[in-house]
Structure formats: structure tokens, C-alpha cells
């Protein structure tokens, strides 16, 4: 199979990831609950994951809250900063993981910056929208539909200068672009474990620069007589038994990313993005590409996007079609009614794979 859906999940992982999952299942009990060996091994596995993430993302291990997904982390972050009726500024490329929690809260949302690959527009629109002192700003680092890399450092600077709390959705950037909680001065940065960090599905990370409100309440293995959730991180956010095998796998994914380096991983994906965009344009298709693009390309095929994806699937190519859970991004790009076909590259991207895909596309 030609797998070009790494924006959804990194399907092939370094082999040490699944080995770590299996090992943890054989050796680990509940972390932070007992003093016997399998419980302490579980606690050690979980802590190693926090350590690796802290080293990669510029924070302390206890600021790494382990979640089940990026969406889970975003829900915690949003509910910590935004109350019903609050005004919030978001980019024009946000995922439903941001817009739906805001909708559920009844937040008043201002969308800023809707032009693809245009940093000037994104920054000027944010500058204007932040003038009214919103309660919070939320922006994705990379659009999951178009691969547009937003000027996140500059956006963070705008928020910091104005004292506006902000959340970064690093779903598509963690593992391939520099992400730093302390460097950005962010209140929260959310990310999945199963995409660029190469961990198993069902894992995620929320980096906490501010005190969050719990989304789940329950046992944490600490301060058990108190009925309030602990004030300390990460316990405050981690009620219930953690997915130890998942985080053991994620630790190995994080180690791989740290060893190879985000710069190299990005370069590998970006090379294929450019190769793919050029190839698709040569076929006469409408391709969304430009400056500041990560490892994702969207395009419009000759037929409906779902039909194109289905035809590709029959020929052994995995891509994703439709709205990609990001109708706002499609609205910004003018593709809400058509959707797009999305090609997204992963850590194992290579020329042969891209060329084989382009060859198949040429025959459709």
C-alpha cells in the first residue's frame, strides 16, 4: 500500500514502538497506585514519556499531561480558559476539535486570517481581532487540510504583548516542527501521540503553561481523602488509570523524533510535498500549495473527491477525502462545497512512493 494519510495517523511506526507496547502489557500494572514492582515499572514507563516530551517541548515533566488524543487536550485547554459567552479569536484553519468545544460553550468566536499561505494576512487579521481584548486566542500550528504553517511564534508574541491567554493546536506539527511551551509562553499546547510523534492511537499530550480545570474527576492515586481534584499537575488532569502500554510506545516515538531531529523529519516530508504538488499540477489539477507548507497537500481531482479517494483506495493508495473535520478551513479556502483530496506524508516519505502515486493519478 502507498500510505499517504499520515495527517490522520502515522500508520507505519518505528518497530521499537510496538515492541514497547507489548513489553509494557507484559510487565506493567497501574502507575502511581502501588509500591510493588509492576506498579513501579508502570510509573517509570509513564514518567519516561513525560521526560521525553518535556525535553522535546521545552517544559518540566509535570507540565506534560497525558491525554487520550489532541482533541481531549484541546477540550481541557478550552474549558480552562473559555467560559460561556466569552469572546475568542481563532484562525481560519481550525479543526472541529477547536470549533465544536467553542460552539458547545456558546463562545463568541472571531475568525482571523483566512488566506492560505499568507503570513501577512494572518498576522494583520489577528492584530486587528486581538484589539478588543478577547478572553483567549486559539490557533493551529499547521492546517490539517492544507498543510499551511501559521506564523505561530509571531502570533504567540502578539498574544503575550497584549496579555491574552492562548492555546496552540500542534496536531500536525508536533514531531516535525519546533514546538516549545516555554519558548512560546503558551497557556496550553495540545498534540496527539499517534501522528508526528509516532506513538500508538489513543495517546496524546497537553502541555500546560497555566493551571487547567479538570475535564474528568476521579482517582489519581494521590491525596485520596480530598474530594477536590489535586491542585498539582499532572494529577489534576489524569483521573483514572492511564494507558501505560500506549505511553510506553509513545516514549519510543518521542525518542525516535529526538534522535533523528524535527528538522530532518520536516525536510523529508517537505521534499515530498513539493514533488507531489508539482506532479499534480502537471496533471492539470487544482492544487493548494504555497510558501509555509508542511507535509500535507490538498487537491481537487477530476471527479468528486470521495470518488477519487475511493478509486485510489482500490488501487492501493491511502488518502483522505472530504472536509477532514475542518469545515472552517475549507470555508476559508473556498472548498466547503467540494471538499478536497488530501495527501499527507510521514516520517518514511520517499520519492518512489510519491512517484508511484502520481503515476496512478495520471491514469485516473
Amino acid at each position, binding site marked *: 500500500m502507498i500510505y499517504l494519510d499520515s495527517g490522520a495517523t502515522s500508520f507505519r511506526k518505528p518497530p521499537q514502538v510496538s515492541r514497547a507496547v507489548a513489553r509494557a502489557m507484559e510487565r506493567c500494572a497501574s*502507575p*502511581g497506585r*502501588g*509500591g510493588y514492582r509492576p506498579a*513501579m515499572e508502570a*510509573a*517509570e514507563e509513564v*514518567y519516561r514519556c*513525560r*521526560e521525553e516530551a518535556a525535553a522535546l517541548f521545552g517544559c*518540566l*515533566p*509535570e507540565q506534560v499531561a497525558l491525554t487520550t488524543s489532541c482533541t481531549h487536550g484541546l477540550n481541557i485547554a478550552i474549558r480552562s480558559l473559555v467560559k460561556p459567552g466569552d469572546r475568542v479569536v481563532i484562525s481560519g484553519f481550525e479543526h472541529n476539535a477547536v470549533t465544536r468545544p467553542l460552539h458547545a460553550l456558546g463562545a463568541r468566536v472571531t475568525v482571523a486570517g483566512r488566506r492560505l499561505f499568507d503570513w501577512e494576512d494572518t498576522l494583520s487579521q489577528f492584530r486587528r481581532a486581538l484589539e478588543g481584548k478577547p478572553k483567549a486566542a486559539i490557533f493551529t500550528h499547521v492546517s490539517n487540510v492544507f498543510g499551511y504553517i501559521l506564523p505561530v511564534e509571531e502570533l504567540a508574541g502578539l498574544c503575550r504583548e497584549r496579555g491574552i491567554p492562548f492555546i496552540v493546536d500542534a496536531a500536525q506539527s508536533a514531531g516535525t516542527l519546533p514546538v516549545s511551551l516555554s519558548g512560546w509562553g503558551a497557556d496550553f499546547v495540545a498534540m496527539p501521540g499517534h501522528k508526528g510523534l509516532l506513538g500508538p492511537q489513543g495517546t496524546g499530550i497537553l502541555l500546560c503553561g497555566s493551571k487547567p480545570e479538570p475535564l474528568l474527576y476521579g482517582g*489519581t*492515586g*494521590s*491525596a*485520596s*481523602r*480530598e474530594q477536590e481534584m*489535586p491542585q*498539582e*499537575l*499532572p*494529577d489534576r488532569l489524569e483521573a483514572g488509570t492511564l494507558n501505560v502500554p500506549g505511553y510506553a510506545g509513545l516514549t519510543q516515538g518521542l525518542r525516535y523524533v529526538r534522535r533523528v531531529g524535527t528538522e530532518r523529519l520536516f525536510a523529508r516530508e517537505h521534499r515530498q510535498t513539493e514533488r507531489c504538488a508539482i506532479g499534480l499540477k502537471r496533471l492539470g489539477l487544482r492544487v493548494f500549495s504555497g510558501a509555509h507548507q508542511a507535509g500535507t497537500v490538498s487537491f481537487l481531482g477530476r471527479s468528486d473527491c470521495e470518488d477519487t479517494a475511493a478509486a485510489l483506495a482500490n488501487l492501493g493508495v491511502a488518502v483522505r477525502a472530504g472536509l477532514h473535520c475542518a469545515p472552517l478551513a475549507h470555508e476559508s479556502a473556498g472548498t466547503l462545497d467540494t471538499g478536497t483530496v488530501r495527501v499527507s506524508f510521514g516520517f518514511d516519505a520517499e520519492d518512489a512512493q510519491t512517484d508511484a502515486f502520481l503515476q496512478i493519478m495520471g491514469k485516473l
Partner: protein
Amino acid sequence: MKNIYFVTFRSVTFAQRGERVLRSSGIHCTLQRTPRWMEEQGCGYALRLRTNQITDAVEALRREKLPIRRVYQQYSSGDLEEVKL
């Protein structure tokens, strides 16, 4: 002969970071559950240290902003007493 101390924490994560901090300072310690009577809020983890430099150890932990609950010394009789540092 070195003394035995227990440094208690509310959260296993803080105790684990404390373990790393002390080890990197050359102070041997082991991570264990906090005995129930040491933690009135119920459930916690402690570092068991064998050292004559408990002040240095606690300072190293505080430098790293680790929220220590309490410090206990264990005497050769087995009795434990809270130490204020």
C-alpha cells in the same frame, strides 16, 4: 554510618523528578509508597535517602521547585521523627 530519611510528596510524578534530581547530585535514594501515617491526605510517594547531607538534598529539591510535603528521619531504633528544614 549514614542516617535514613524519608522525603514525602503528594504526587508520584514529583517524587520521580525528585529521584532524578537527587541521583544527578550523587545522592542515592529509592522511590516508594509513603507510609500511611506520614500522609494525612492519604496516598503519596516518598524518597528514602541514606545520607548525612539531608540539608543539601532538600535544598537541591527546593532549587528545582519540587513541592516537598515533609521530611522524616528514621533512627536506629526504627522510630521516625519529622525534621524541620
